[in-house]
């Protein structure tokens, strides 16, 4: 099971990830990523959106997002 991991010490609330994988992430009121569904606090990534999640992790300008298994 793959999930997204946010390194909060790096994340600056840029918000790109929420645009790239909206199925998993949305933005809180300050712009930081949060689960787009309250049932998915662990940020589990389904196979259907795996490519989106991978791209979001790759494109994070601060390297704060990782896809972990």
């Amino acid at each position, binding site marked *: 099971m793959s999930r997204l*991991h*946010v*390194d*909060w*010490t*790096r*994340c*600056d*609330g840029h918000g790109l990830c929420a645009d790239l994988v909206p199925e998993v992430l949305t933005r*809180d009121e*300050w*712009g*930081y990523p*949060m689960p787009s569904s309250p049932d998915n*606090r662990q940020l589990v990534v389904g196979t259907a959106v795996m490519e989106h999640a991978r791209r979001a992790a790759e494109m994070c300008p601060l390297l704060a997002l*990782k896809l*972990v298994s």
Partner: protein
Amino acid sequence: MTVLSSPPVTEAPTGTRRLLLAPGPTLAEHLATFGPLPVVDDLAAVVEQSDLTGRGGAGFPAARKLRGVTRLGGGVVVGNGAEGEPLSDKDRVLLLSAPHLVIDGLVLTARAVGAKEAYLVTARPEVARHLRRELSLRRDRLRIRVVEVADRFVSGEESALVNAVNGRPGLPSDRSVRVYEKGVKRRPTLVHNVETLAHIALLARFGAAWFASVGTADESGTFLATVGGAVSAPGVFEIAHGTPLASLLSWAGADAHHPQAVLVGGYHGAWVPGHLVGSTRMSRASLSAHSASVGAGIVAVLGRDRCGLVESAGVASYLAGQVAGQCGPCINGLPRMADALQRLARGERDPRLVDEVGRMRQLVVGRGACAHPDGTARFVASTMHVFADEVAVHLGGGCSVQAAR
């Protein structure tokens, strides 16, 4: 025939006075009370049999940590006495009154994991001086360095501690960094609270069965509790797991009348309402009913003359001020949560503030490098639950404590 003089047989301490049994802190008093440091073949096995858990707050099984670092090899051992929680005094008291038990524990665990260097960390200059002096009187082969860290709430978090020992700012790292794999000088690092180390020093001498002869079936041994707040004799008490909360409070000279509430586990802990103090014990099983835990053994009494909401809002503001400044949700959410609580405490009659507190709690949980947002949210949740009536009184424009005056 020469009769070799056998070492004096030291009797195992009876009762619950163990860590603080020696009449004074010197090496001579330590040796006279506990006897010399024994050689233990399989320390992890003894620790495992004893069911000793970490005494720094998280309560993780001590043997598991020990085995983890042993397996990786080439490790470093760190004694954590940073004690960033302002209500806690037990690490300071232990390091000042029984430094050689802590050092023994450090030597034993270093031997067990094959470490050649070890560190003792404190945030207090007087403790650091005392430790350096006592260390200079010993002849251990292990190289032990005393490190002083900044006195802030998150200083004692494992990764923050390791960062400080490495000469970097003492702030927590991302959770993907595991200090038992890559800690001090990027080597496998065993971090134990100083009290945990002192217990290990006693375990090595007197064994697991002795250790577990006090406590409950689930939680063995004694622990150091710091009792403060509305009591006439605040201080550090060594008690067995499962001790009735009311007994502990009476030893600290708490008012014979029921306290309004008791905070257990410190600023990241939870409130036990006054009318339930009599049925509460200092054990995981009993405290879980209040979503509290023994944690680092902190107990603070709220007197009848104080407003629980006002006091809690003060704690929430303090915790918001202790944010390390690394993680966005914590930087933004904790001050907002504390502000909403303060406005309720001050008597702003806006029921939306209650929702705002709840919303901020949800928003910060699990969204930081360390447990600070989660711990703060837990304390605030307990406050809103235990002082729900007081919140209602404040929303009605009053305060039950002021009304009683």
